[in-house]
């Protein structure tokens, strides 16, 4: 199949034109068997995988992928790069990169190319009763307190689904809540202002919950925000045993 080429000048999506160019060969998993799978794009440094995808889309506008914020904050653009789930907008393409394999997240049905149906992820999220229910003291979680650190540790989850893709259990056990939902549950359970601790621990402890985790730590390795969902799961497990 023909490899599509593009010039350096056209590539300039986000970066300035004076930086050195890196030429990368992309192999992209396409849902349409007849679609072009290989692209050659030239990118100015610093570059991230999203820049390469956008450059590729100019060559083949039918190339499907999601993105929005381009600063690793919205969680829209998660894909697998060389087999590893990550955010396309955060994954640097270093000057010495020659080739990249881009695939959709694992554990989801493909909608088109790199776009997947994330509904299993959100359905699991919904099962942990993911909304705060007032019950504890209002003026809590003071600065510097251990209770606060516990809550803040898991707060920055952007629900990108990288952990879901990296989790071996999710793939084999359709009922498993998965790392992100359990991390969210932990964050709420740890919040002493919340009044639904018992209910959340019950959900986390039952079928589909923390006991299914094999502690392979795939989620923690994958998290683009540097969170540690496997530690959240361990803590939830301990608390749900005590509860």
């Amino acid at each position, binding site marked *: 199949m023909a490899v599509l080429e593009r010039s350096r000048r056209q590539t300039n999506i*986000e970066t300035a034109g004076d930086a050195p160019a890196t030429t990368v060969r992309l192999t992209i998993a396409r849902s349409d068997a007849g679609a072009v799978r290989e692209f050659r794009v030239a990118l100015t440094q610093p570059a991230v995988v999203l820049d390469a995808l956008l450059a590729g889309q*100019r060559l083949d506008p039918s190339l499907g992928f999601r993105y929005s*914020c381009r600063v690793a904050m*919205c969680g829209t653009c998660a894909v697998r790069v060389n087999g590893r789930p990550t955010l396309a907008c955060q994954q640097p393409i270093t000057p010495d990169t020659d080739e990249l394999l881009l695939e959709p997240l694992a554990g989801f049905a493909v909608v088109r190319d790199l776009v997947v149906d994330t509904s299993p992820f959100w359905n699991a999220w919904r099962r942990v009763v993911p909304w705060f229910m007032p019950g504890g003291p209002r003026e809590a979680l*003071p600065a510097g307190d251990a209770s606060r650190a516990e809550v803040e540790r898991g707060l920055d989850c952007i629900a990108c689904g990288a952990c879901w893709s990296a989790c071996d259990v999710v793939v084999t056990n359709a009922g498993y809540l998965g790392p992100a939902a359990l991390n969210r549950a932990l964050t709420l359970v740890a*919040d002493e202002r919340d009044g639904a601790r018992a209910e959340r621990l019950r959900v986390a402890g039952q079928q589909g919950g923390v006991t299914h985790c094999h502690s392979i730590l795939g989620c923690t390795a994958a998290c683009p925000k540097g969170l540690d969902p496997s530690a959240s799961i361990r803590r939830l497990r301990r608390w749900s045993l005590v509860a």
Partner: protein
Amino acid sequence: MGRGTAVAGCPVARRPASDRFQAMDVSFDVLVVGAGCAGMRAAIEAHDAGARVAVVSKLHPTRSHSGAAEGGINAALGNKAEDSPETHAFDTVKGSDYLGDQDAIEIFTREAPGDIYQLEGWGCVFSRNAEGKLDQRPFGAAGSPRTVYSADITGHVLIQVLYEQLQRRMSEGLVVFEEYFAFRLVEDGGRCTGVICWDLLHGGVKAVTGSATILATGGAGRLFRATTNAYACTGDGMAMALRAGLPLKDMEFMQFHPTTMYPSGILITEGCRGEGGYLLNKDGERFMKRYAPNALELASRDVVSRSETTEIEAGRGVNGSVMLDLRHLGPEKILNKLPGSRELAMTYAGVDPIFAPIPVRPGAHYHMGGVETDEWGLTPLEGLYAAGEVACVSVHGANRLGGNSLMETITFGRRAGRHAAEYALGRTAAANGRAETARADAEAWVDGLLAVEQGERPWQIRDELGQSMLENFGVFRYPDKMDRQVGIIDELRHRYGRGVVIEDKGTVFNSDLTQAIELGYLLDLAACMLQAGVVRKESRGAHSRPSDFPERDDENFMKHSITTWVDGAPQLSYREVRMTKWEPMVRSY
């Protein structure tokens, strides 16, 4: 409902939960377009007021650009130093360069504290002081530290909490149509009765109808090549309203954020300067002392952006940028207070601010203009509301203060949701006679777009638009450059109007199609901005004409520009600023 901010004297009809409908072919009471902070807050309020609510959004709600806000949200809680809604109002009026409507600003600052406590009650994890009270940080041009925050992920935490409240109401019948791209308003007998959408995941043109519609589609930063805004910020709601004959207000005012990273435009929060960061020129001089001797780096954003641009134009920049230096804050403060900013600088500029300064320059950040509304978010079209960055109430006037826009999404999102619900529940369901015709028209239009086989690719026009807007209609606006830009926009609109080729003819996740539609929106909005900018012969807030009209001219221009779309072109008129108690003064910091 039980909230301190509920509207007094407005009894609200409650409907039993069983009366809520889920099906798509049913007309909703309130339809919200957009699911950022403003849209979600509006939907929650309308639902709590008893309305059957549907939300349509081109992104999953948590992907909305509100989630990228870092710095914080302003309310006069007075937790850190003495403060009052009155002081907050004065700062906002002054910050707006006296173009903000003072009645709206007073409502805003009075209701903001109640809204913050309500968010707290929903579990929002704000940063706190040692006693457990909500902490407040100093922000630009604020008379008191009044910015409530959550480390530097404030927008993310707000989005998360609002989405959770939305999910809770989804279990009670609220419906969310995710990845629905709205592109036309439906008008029937002088009322707005819904929107026409393209279903991104399944393809197809669909009508979603409601007795009241709330636009909450966010800003239009993508008009400029250097911008802090997400790719999705293409001004869709403004353009839809414009094409439906509605007035847009103060379109020429685009705020440039003074600290966006070179070269990407990615934002470094004002919180960095709030915590004590310096701005340096190439000689290592803290140049702000020459421009704003008292406020220094914490002067209002327009002042800082202009100072930087002056330094850069005078050859005292580095690579078209200046330097944001945090090194003297020390690793501990940087790691504890500004971890997100450090991460961004490392990934996108290759700089660790603990050891090196970050190259920054002004980039398009926040659009003060938008769909004209009253203080309930109601537009001149019955049944149509707007809230958040898409709207122009106006609380920001010619220049928004950092932290005021997130607050606006919450306070005015709530007000629009409340008013829309009351309106919808107080009348019989929308007559949907027009919806199917409008849908069929829209479908024929989309088919027409897809049928174009020869012509330019949309991105060629988009690149030229972004680049030329930045060059000719950026921080400083010079008459010759504006003239040139008017010509460029005409030409680009002509090229677009001739027909661009959408190569992807597919139905599933056809972003080629939606990007082409978004480009049309951006071009319309650019024409409006330019026209209003050329005619505003003064310098006020974010609109700065250093060579021909360097001063504010209250006599001739203390008024809102109003743009309507007439015969395929923008048409300009003016509206008085509503004043209550603050007479215009010279704005200096």
